[in-house]
């Protein structure tokens, strides 16, 4: 056997062994590299977040501020009608007096009620689990706003100016947390809120791929107890909470 053919043979054996080790749908090391720009979002990944309320500081709104900046949401001075993609909510146990707070945004359900009720198909779930509004076909009926158990959707009431080129938004349509889809498509692998939370030193928000057993979020979910908000509705949310 010549050196060349032996190398070829060894290569074939290695490839065959790798084929055995990597069963369909399971890879030893999930490739977290960014998709190519021409590659569509795939159901192999499911993006989600884990929010550790023990680390979330009461009174801190850095995630909300970062979200507004990233997505070009401006304060008009009319908070009742302003779009809101993340809300900070404060919780208090009346018996023990324990207080904590948590950000609540679109929970990116696997079975999203907003998609069920949408009459035009504008509200949809992308292959990688992100629930979005296609504002080209949104008619602004706001059924989804009513259907969402998390109050995560906002209606845009006024003409907008100075939208970011990467985040188009406009009057007469419904919107909500996109899980910073433009950042995901770019391959940043994080969201504006998670970045801001980390920068503030809290690290209460962990973003990652729920389908990848090696990702930080999956490891944390294995380690600490977590819940889905309104898990009784069995929507299988992509955003999980610990300590609520």
């Amino acid at each position, binding site marked *: 056997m010549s050196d060349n053919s032996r190398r070829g043979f060894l290569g074939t054996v290695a490839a065959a062994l790798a084929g055995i080790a990597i069963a369909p749908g399971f890879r030893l090391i999930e490739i977290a590299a960014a*998709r190519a*720009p*021409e*590659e*569509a*979002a795939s159901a192999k990944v499911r993006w989600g977040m884990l929010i550790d309320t023990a680390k979330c500081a009461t009174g801190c709104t850095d995630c909300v501020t970062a979200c507004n*900046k990233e997505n*070009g949401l*401006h304060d008009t001075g009319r908070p009742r009608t302003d779009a809101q993609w993340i809300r900070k909510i404060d919780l208090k146990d009346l018996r023990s007096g324990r207080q904590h707070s948590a950000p609540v945004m679109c929970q990116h359900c696997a079975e999203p009620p907003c998609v069920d009720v949408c009459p035009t198909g504008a509200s*949809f779930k*992308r*292959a*990688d689990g992100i629930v*979005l509004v*296609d*504002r*080209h076909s949104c008619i602004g009926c706001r059924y989804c706003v009513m259907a969402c158990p998390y109050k995560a959707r906002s209606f845009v009431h006024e*003409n*907008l100016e*100075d*939208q*970011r*080129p*990467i985040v*188009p*938004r*406009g*009057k007469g*349509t419904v919107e909500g947390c996109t899980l910073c*889809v*433009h950042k*995901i*498509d*770019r391959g940043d692998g994080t969201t504006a809120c998670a970045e801001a939370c980390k920068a503030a030193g809290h690290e209460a928000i962990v973003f990652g791929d729920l389908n990848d057993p090696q990702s930080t979020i999956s490891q944390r979910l294995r380690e600490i107890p977590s819940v889905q908000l309104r898990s009784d509705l069995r929507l299988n949310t992509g955003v999980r909470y610990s300590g609520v």
Partner: protein
Amino acid sequence: MPRLAATLALALVAGPSLARDRVPTPEIVIARPGQCVEPTEVMRRDHMRFLLHQRDRTVREGIRTPKYSLAGCVECHASTKTGSVLGEGGFCQDCHSYAGVKLDCFECHAAKPERLSAQARP
């Protein structure tokens, strides 16, 4: 008599070009001239089709290739004076006003490239 014939002949020759000149066609100024993603004739006729397909691929599937993207159009075609594709001398609006076709892309999309849009507004 020969003079009249000559005048008539001149009128016939010059007629069509004079008629064209009377119609105020939009003055198209391209801020960053160069090769567009398709030949000019194709773009004039079909740009809306390219944009329509690209928008569905982008929103629904997350395919963000720069070719045919609206942000790509704005990047090259925004006016050097106003920084926008809308308004006086705006590449998109001038032609759409001339053709009488409603242009509603920019009710949601930014009409200025990222570097010029006031994204850092508090």
